[in-house]
């Protein structure tokens, strides 16, 4: 498990660990009593990935919705 807190992970870090979590759950490589914690970790990673994707989409939208269809730069937005 990556030591970086989930809320500080890059998209790539979160996605890589999420893939490991899914593989473990699907392969039954995890104990019954730990299965739920692993699922919850996976859920947190999924949310992190979604947040990063959404931030990227907003950035793209900020570029492409500028006047007259001409990219003139990016607008400031809240997402980190």
């Amino acid at each position: 498990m990556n030591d970086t807190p989930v809320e500080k992970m890059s998209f790539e870090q979160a996605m890589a660990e999420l893939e490991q979590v899914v593989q473990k759950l699907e392969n039954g490589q995890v104990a019954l009593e730990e299965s739920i914690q692993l699922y919850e970790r996976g859920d947190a990673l999924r949310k992190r990935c979604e947040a990063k994707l959404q931030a990227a989409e907003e950035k793209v939208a900020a570029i492409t919705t500028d006047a007259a269809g001409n990219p003139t730069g990016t607008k400031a937005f809240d997402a980190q």
Partner: protein
Amino acid sequence: MEGSAMTTALFTHSDCLEHETPEGHSERADRLRAIWKALEDPAFDALDRREAPLAERSELLRVHPEAHVAAIEAAIPAEGYVSLDADTHVMAGSLVAALRAVGAVVSAVDAVMAGEVKNAFCAIRPPGHHAERVTPMGFCLFGNVSIGAKRALDHYGLERVAIIDFDVHHGNGTQDLLWDEPRILFCSTHQMPLYPGTGEPRETGAHDNIINAPLPPMSDGAAFRKIMEEQILPALDDFQPELVLISAGFDAHKDDPLAQLNFDVEDFVWVTEKICDIADKHAGGRVVSTLEGGYDLESLAASTAAHVKVLMERGA
């Protein structure tokens, strides 16, 4: 009412408390104590209460090879715990508890087949539906419900036995033990993804004798009822079982700490009634239900009591 078939039997034994698990372990003796306490209510006075006998070795061998039984026996320590996997631990009292658990199911099948009672509930631990042919796992040592089903087929000559498993975890053990058994229809609902990772719809058994109907995390009782009504109940009706067994795990309850389905007590009442409908139609009402999981003591006790109450109403 003694001697009448118009009743429900409760099979259990205090030896099932003697399978102690390490401090903090979810599958603990207090689960059974909580169920017993709930069943002390006067509403359950009409239960035909019976002590579970120790299962004969020949019963275990209906689904497990001799090597598995010998390995479990050999693993039992004189003191302390031995861990068979990350979840499954045995100590001095574990073997006797496991033999009572199997004995309960075997005797419940006998009582129902003999017409002594209409249906039966087995309040037992350790549970059984994760135990594979040679692999104890997920708190389980022997395949309790599978052994009962095999006895009904091979001792009583039944041709069709159904098992419905609504425990929140997939019954991988039951699936493993009965994969190549065309006389049994095994139907499982369970959360996916979750332990043990099996239970995809594409896992259908060697004879299309297995139906796996997984539910995504956070599914509620409405989703459960839908999948039962659309997939499992019609298949059971077509199969026309002569005896219906239930792997009754109550860990799909919304308060359970080991999973994320959101059933409530009424959903367990509903499914019990639907299963009894199938049994009434095809099996002369014969139902044997066996405890599997359920790890929140309050909801476990309430759900089990409600389940047994339906059995009593339908057995009366």
